[in-house]
């Protein structure tokens, strides 16, 4: 079952934004996120906002979904006004975007292009399951204007894929990367999940080698998080699977950083490595606090210090769109201090680091100690930025608690 959204204040039914937030629109890069809340089956570890066809219920269907998103893109234009702010990144995530009928993703992208325009070098990404794409469908996406595809490979070990309840075979992900390259995608990502129950160091070494060897220029490696309410959590609780061990996760992280670095992929965010130029701009937009509009059920948006999130169920979403109303369920208007805290929380995860100017005097003292403790890099600190060391990345949340204390 999907996790619960945060609480917030009511969002206006027309989607309108506070004047201050609106006034700052265009001063930061602007991105679009499109959420596709469909999956053929739900994986045991997943708590994302996604639904199998059985779970959809009346009022929502994959067939009519693209039209609803196109309607929300038009709503975004009305809300944000006429200012000429072309979109620098579009990211279609899920769920499984490639479950939509052929051409739908292209239609949504066309709507973004029509309403806002894209920057010349815009990054256009879709997530994909290795077994929900073919050479033909990839070629079609490329032709529609997609520049980047991100595959959920997760692992090359069959027993790990089984624990995660992934449906694809290990070799399929590698083949899909090759097909994407063949279709002309300049950037391909593979996602890995490590420290799953039963995964050995050798299993993960093989996964890293497969990811690097596939030709992808970007790898995201995430420690498995056992989310409440998932089947995985239930199996661990019942003792069917061992729990995830943080020390093992730490070892795997070091393993990932070493293997990926050796292959020429450098870290640029705690969980992301890329060849130079392969960094995911959409990903950076989140950590840098850029503006983005999230379309689709449960999607989160941020414009000028206002964060809002859409109603979660596809049927509720469809009803709002059909009524011509904003699908936003609630929002929060951040104070200056909230935004400062978020900046610390988010930017400290990046290789480019956190400008020290965002810290209070107490936070600066903590940062200085972090350098002394080997959690942050000395030269970067001297140059005015807090950049985490390898050990510091593993303790980023603990450090953030001290930095904003």
């Amino acid at each position: 079952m999907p996790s619960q959204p945060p609480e917030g204040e009511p969002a206006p039914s027309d989607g309108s934004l506070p004047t201050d937030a609106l006034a700052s629109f265009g001063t930061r890069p602007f991105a679009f996120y499109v959420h596709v809340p469909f999956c053929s089956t739900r994986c045991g570890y997943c708590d994302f906002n996604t639904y199998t066809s059985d779970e959809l219920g009346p009022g929502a269907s994959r067939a009519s979904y693209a039209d609803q998103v196109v309607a929300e893109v038009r709503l975004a234009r009305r809300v944000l006004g006429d200012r000429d702010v072309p979109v620098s990144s579009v990211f279609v995530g899920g769920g499984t975007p490639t479950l939509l009928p052929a051409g739908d993703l292209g239609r949504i992208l066309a709507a973004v292009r029509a309403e806002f325009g894209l920057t010349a070098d815009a990054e256009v990404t879709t997530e994909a399951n290795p077994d929900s794409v073919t050479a033909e469908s990839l070629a079609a996406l490329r032709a529609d204007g997609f520049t980047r595809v991100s595959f959920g490979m997760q692992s090359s070990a069959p027993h790990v894929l089984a624990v995660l309840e992934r449906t694809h075979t290990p070799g399929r992900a590698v083949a899909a990367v090759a097909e994407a390259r063949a279709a002309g995608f300049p950037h391909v990502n593979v996602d890995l999940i490590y420290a799953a129950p039963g995964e050995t160091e050798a299993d993960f070494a093989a996964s890293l080698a497969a990811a690097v060897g596939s030709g992808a220029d970007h790898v995201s490696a995430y420690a498995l998080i056992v989310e409440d309410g998932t089947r995985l959590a239930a199996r661990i609780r019942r003792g069917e699977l061992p729990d995830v061990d943080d020390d093992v996760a730490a070892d795997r992280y070091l393993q990932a950083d070493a293997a990926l670095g050796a292959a020429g992929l450098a870290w640029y965010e705690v969980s992301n490595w890329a060849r130079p130029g392969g960094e995911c701009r959409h990903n950076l937009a989140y950590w840098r606090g850029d503006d983005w509009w999230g379309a689709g059920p449960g999607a989160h948006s941020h414009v000028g210090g206002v964060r809002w999130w859409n109603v979660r169920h596809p049927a509720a979403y469809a009803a709002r769109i059909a009524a011509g109303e904003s699908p936003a369920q609630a929002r929060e208007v951040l104070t200056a201090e909230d935004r400062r805290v978020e900046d610390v929380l988010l930017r400290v995860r990046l290789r480019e680091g956190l400008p020290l100017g965002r810290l209070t005097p107490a936070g600066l003292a903590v940062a200085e100690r972090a350098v002394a403790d080997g959690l942050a890099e000395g030269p970067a600190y001297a140059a005015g930025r807090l950049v985490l060391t390898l050990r510091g990345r593993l303790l980023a949340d603990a450090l953030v608690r001290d930095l904003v204390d």
Partner: protein
Amino acid sequence: MGDRARAVARADHAREPARPTCEDDQTTVANASAPVPGSTDPSVIRNFCIIAHIDHGKSTLADRMLQLTGVVDGRAMRAQYLDRMDIERERGITIKSQAVRLPYTASDGVTYVLNLIDTPGHVDFTYEVSRSLAACEGAILLVDAAQGIEAQTLANLYLALENDLQIIPVLNKIDLPAAQPEKYAAELARIIGCDPDDVLRVSAKTGHGVGELLEEVVRLVPAPVGDPNAPARAMIFDSVYDTYRGVVTYVRVIDGHLSTRERIQMMSTGVVHEMLEVGVISPDPISSAGIGVGEVGYLITGVKDVRQSRVGDTVTSARHGATQALGGYRDPKPMVFSGLYPLDGSDYPELRDALDKLQLNDAALVYEPETSVALGFGFRCGFLGLLHLEIVRERLEREFGLDLISTAPNVVYRVVMDDGSESVVTNPSEFPSGKIAEVYEPMVRSTILAPSEYIGAIMELCQTRRGTLLGMDYLSEDRVELRYTLPLAEIVFDFFDALKSKTRGYASLDYEPTGEQASDLVKVDILLHGEPVDAFSSIVHRDKAYAYGVSMASKLKELIPRQQFEVPIQAAIGARVIARETIRAIRKDVLAKCYGGDITRKRKLLEKQKEGKKRMKMVGRVEVPQEAFIAALSTDDTAAKPKS
């Protein structure tokens, strides 16, 4: 000293029937021909108490006597009439004493005045018991016919014999199927040196034999003797704080006469008070013009603090008063100390107010402000013993709604340095460093009664607690009395629990202070990341320092969450480390992902974690959860739950 937990200032006190009232409220005396207070011939007075173990039926017997003498009718009878406080009622124990005047027309046709003086029933209150006994000429030794005598009862019996009281041995609960009256009558006869046939057999529950018992009290207990013309001397055997009336003082008149509207003097301090009211309890207060030789009654002077009306003190008239006080007065002396800290630091003023209020009714409770690096602001409190500590703590939590952390109880040490200077240590963290010549610790003389099959187990336990066997006697074929000298420090922690578990609950324990002894004692400090944690410092015997250090270090290792750096936990005597554990550094504390741009969730999580951080106590750079302190300081090993 008053006792440790008498009726405190409580709004609902008004419904309690024992509160002294004005003359015109309560004038009904059950027996119309009864002698009048203040002019009762001592020859018809019988002052007695009941010595019994907690659940051997003392209160039920008292209830039955109240009924039989007609001072309480069956309808008004409330079970255990004389026990009034909630805590007492729940625990089934009597922790305050009172005196009831029972007019009783005996079979010889004479109407006597029986004064039943209740005695506190716990080891901490030996001195109070001795004063109650000193107010009597006789004592009913009440023993459960299914269980036999218990250690505290035996100890109190010895006290009664020291006070030359006439003992009336009684077996109670003879109606129980498990009763063994023959066996226990023989046991009692052996202990007090009488004939087994002299042991009365009653059932307080059914009333069987209680009438005969009253006749025996009249027949056997000597009438009080005193000089009615001498200056007044009355001994205080109890004093209770009442919200409406202030302190109510219970006295036994030895010589002379105390009258209302005269001024009285406390002989230990010389302080003079106005006497506002004199009276007797029967069982509700009845004020009178005065009380005379041999009588037992109450005085109200309007003072608000029981420390001005101390158990054992002598009351006399302010004018032409006595010059020689009655013997036996002692200042209350705290034996056990513990730091009490509010769980929430902002409750400190409430804790102070609550202690101030409790002290009005508890002359033995002492406290002074104390600061702990680990626990913040609190009070170092002194108690007569462990039960006293428990009662005070429970009342603070229950009546004042406070959540408290208490440090492990410790005793008082006298430390003599090489240069001859001396200090008294009530808090282990204040144990002096430097050249120590001797450390003295308080000792107790303990009596343990148990079935003889447990002798081995008890001896082993006492051995490990540094006990010295003084003697052993068989009370009957299969019951034995063991007498040990033990350091009080060895008893205050978990001795009684250990004793109970080694004897399947059959052993009983009593102890009394018996001076001090030089011992090879050391202070063990617990250091977290090199910083001493004052709340965990303990004074222990050198032979046990290692075991204490190891157990505390491993306990803390389980309780303290991993930090960003490796945290050594050390137990040390001075600079010498005797035990060490290490909390490995946490290696991963980062969430991998951002939940699809749900930054709000990430920030809320951070806020929640920051809240959790606020509940941590900082020891140097180490964050220690409050729960870790509570669990580490608790004597119960099961409370040491692993960190999540």
